[in-house]
């Protein structure tokens, strides 16, 4: 009998700690499918953040490092500079990447650090129980914005892809979502492109994945996906914000 | 009792104070002595001076910081004023008299005033007033031999600028022979 669907080899055969309906599982799987397709897991080192995916080192079957909060791009820089021929990726949430780790993110990007950053944006601090994130939407209620995020008090959300697209070192800045099958396919294509960029030494590639947090949003998994479409995508439009290889192809024509 | 020479070189930044100190230290090393060289670093708080301490000794050197030198080279007025009083009785001070227009009234030390900046200009040795003063210092004290000095220049001058060694040695000679 032909096998048409199975667990990617790069994904460990262990139960995860993620909440029901959480989209981390999908994103993990996409990264692992890409590693399998490119046959690079044996030469890949992943770097975990602090946040919900802090224990992702138990799920990815490549070598893994757990970084201090926000420092994953710096840790990945150290790995990549020490082992330039390996593949290196970070897997970070919004608080890790866009609040405490902003400096590390921006500077890894502007150095053109030849790494892949998977940025999971679910507009909240999930692991600590749902506090305001740098990407929390105006009006969004969290534990630390009980009356809704008020830009006059808490300022505005950070649009990471748009910001990093302005930097010369960024090779790819693309925002995707995992709310539907077509979007999941696009997300996988973006992640694959990011790893191919690394193979081709193009520089810093970030794929921002709009994700959900049913637990802390207080919604069912389906309602959460609905919110992603209704509230998040309008504020964080999907698309390619920077693609050096496409620009180069265009220029070559 | 072991001989120890404690030297302070002081002047403006850019006069080659640190290099001159390095030459003295290297000469000591070439003579198989124990040596140390310690610069002032960072923005100077008083008088815009740069200075360094050099120790040359038969024994391992304790504190490399020289507060009361036996030997002083002063290349500007603020440094002269700062250090002339600190020179140990019986010590020697050599001043660039173009830059230091005062004369010390201390009678317990040997003071020499050499218009090193002007001589350097006149002799086509621009920027080597520091080396002329070293020439005077060793001419008066004999703490270092010419052979060790030459070796020190060979060690300190980059290979690409090896032609500078003979200019430096010429500056030393002029300093040694200066009489007034």
């Amino acid at each position, binding site marked *: 009998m032909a096998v048409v669907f199975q667990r990617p080899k790069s994904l460990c055969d262990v139960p995860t700690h993620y909440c029901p309906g959480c989209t981390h599982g999908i994103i993990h799987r996409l990264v692992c499918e890409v590693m399998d397709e490119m046959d690079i897991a044996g030469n890949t*080192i992943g770097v975990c953040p602090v946040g919900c995916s802090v224990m992702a080192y*138990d799920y990815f079957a490549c*070598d*893994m490092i757990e970084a201090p909060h926000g420092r994953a791009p710096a840790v990945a820089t*150290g790995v990549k*500079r*020490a082992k330039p021929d390996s593949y290196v990726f970070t897997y970070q949430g919004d608080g890790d990447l866009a609040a405490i780790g902003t400096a590390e993110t921006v500077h890894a990007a502007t150095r053109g650090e030849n790494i892949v950053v998977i940025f999971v944006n679910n507009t909240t601090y999930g692991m600590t129980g749902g506090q305001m994130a740098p990407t929390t939407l105006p009006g969004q209620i969290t534990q630390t914005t009980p009356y809704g995020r008020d830009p006059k008090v808490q300022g505005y959300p950070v649009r990471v892809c748009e910001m990093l697209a302005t930097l010369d070192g960024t090779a790819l800045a693309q925002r995707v979502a995992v709310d539907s099958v077509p979007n999941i396919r696009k997300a996988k294509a973006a992640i694959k492109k990011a790893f191919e960029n690394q193979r081709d030494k193009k520089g810093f590639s970030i794929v921002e994945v709009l994700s959900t947090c049913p637990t802390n949003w207080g919604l069912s998994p389906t309602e959460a996906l609905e919110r992603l479409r209704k509230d998040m995508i309008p504020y964080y439009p999907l698309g390619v914000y920077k693609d050096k290889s496409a620009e180069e192809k265009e220029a070559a024509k | 009792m072991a001989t120890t020479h404690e030297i302070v070189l002081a002047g403006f930044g850019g006069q080659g104070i640190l290099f001159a100190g390095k030459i003295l230290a290297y000469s000591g*090393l070439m003579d198989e002595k124990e040596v140390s*060289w310690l610069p002032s670093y960072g923005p100077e708080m008083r008088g815009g001076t740069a200075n360094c301490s050099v120790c040359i000794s038969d024994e391992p050197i304790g504190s490399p910081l020289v*507060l009361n030198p036996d030997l002083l080279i002063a290349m500007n007025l603020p440094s002269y004023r700062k250090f002339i009083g600190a020179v140990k009785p019986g010590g020697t001070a050599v001043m660039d008299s173009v830059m230091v227009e005062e004369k010390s009234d201390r009678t317990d030390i040997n003071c020499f005033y050499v218009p090193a900046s002007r001589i350097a200009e006149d002799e086509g040795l621009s920027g080597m007033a520091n080396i002329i003063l070293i020439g005077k210092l060793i001419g008066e004290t004999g703490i270092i031999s010419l052979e060790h000095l030459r070796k020190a220049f060979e060690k300190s001058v980059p290979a690409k600028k090896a032609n500078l060694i003979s200019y430096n040695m010429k500056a030393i000679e002029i300093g040694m022979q200066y009489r007034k």
Partner: protein
Amino acid sequence: MERNLMKGNEAIAEAAMRAGCKCFFGYPITPQTEISAYLAKNMAKNGGLFLQAESEVAAINMVLGASSTGTRVMTSSSSPGISLKSEGISYIAASDLPCVIVNVQRGGPGLGGIQPSQADYWQATKALGHGDFHILVFAPSSVQEMVDMVTEAFDLADEYRMPAMLLADGLLGQMMEPVSFPEKRTEFSPKPWATDGHKNKREHNIVNSLFLQPDVLQNSVVKRFERYEEIKEKHAQAEVYLCEDAEIVVTAYGATARVAKSAVNAARAKGIKAGLFRPKTLWPYPEKRLNDACKTAKRVLCVEMSMGQMIDDVKLALECRIPVEFFGKTGGVIPTPTEVLAQIEKYAE
């Protein structure tokens, strides 16, 4: 062996390359910047990497990443910068990763000053980050010793899988002294724990400091402390000078020990039975050596460029059996041999 004149900071950098350091990550700060400048010039020529990070925080985490791959790696800074690195140092220690950290101390607290100081003793030996852990702390007192200790720091860091610090100061970093270097290291022990890509030949390696189960975390800490006991036994080092009959033993480390030694010599010349005890490792502290050195001592005088930090370890080691006096200068002021001699004379009666 040929001896050349070299600045302490540059000697550290050259020694690191010869010890097989392949990556250096740093951020400029006075008075240690020559280390970065030297490596920026020479690292690539020697097949290594120099990278100026965007912050001290980033630099120490780059060290974490490079060390995870099994690469010999170093960072350096001065006091305020070390405070910023403390987060990463705790993670590195807790992840059982080796690395070498240089602190060319300057006056503090706060932005402080840029002149030599020893006010980071507590930080280095007791509290370089949160949690139960130690790092090896070497205290050189000459440029040559900086070279020797950098080499040893890399070796012991690898052997015990822990960070090692060279605790120097602005005076040692900035001064030039004659120095000779060992041959370049070419052979290293394998690091089977490294996350350098498993090549599909082994299970995946994980470098991690997170243990959510209290008993598991406790176990990992206890095992580390068992290693520390072995280190205390084997690697506590000191120089003991003229202590055989000493009635007053001066304790000092680093640059201050040079000043103290001059003062001890001067005291001996005056007929005072003075000696010097100079710890070369501050963690582990050479407690047994200190007790041996103080066998005939009636008093101990601890001299530091701080308000008195190492004195705690001196008292603990001696279990307060001998009175311990203190003399110190802080903020970048360097004590002079004359001042220390006056203290020796005062306490020798």
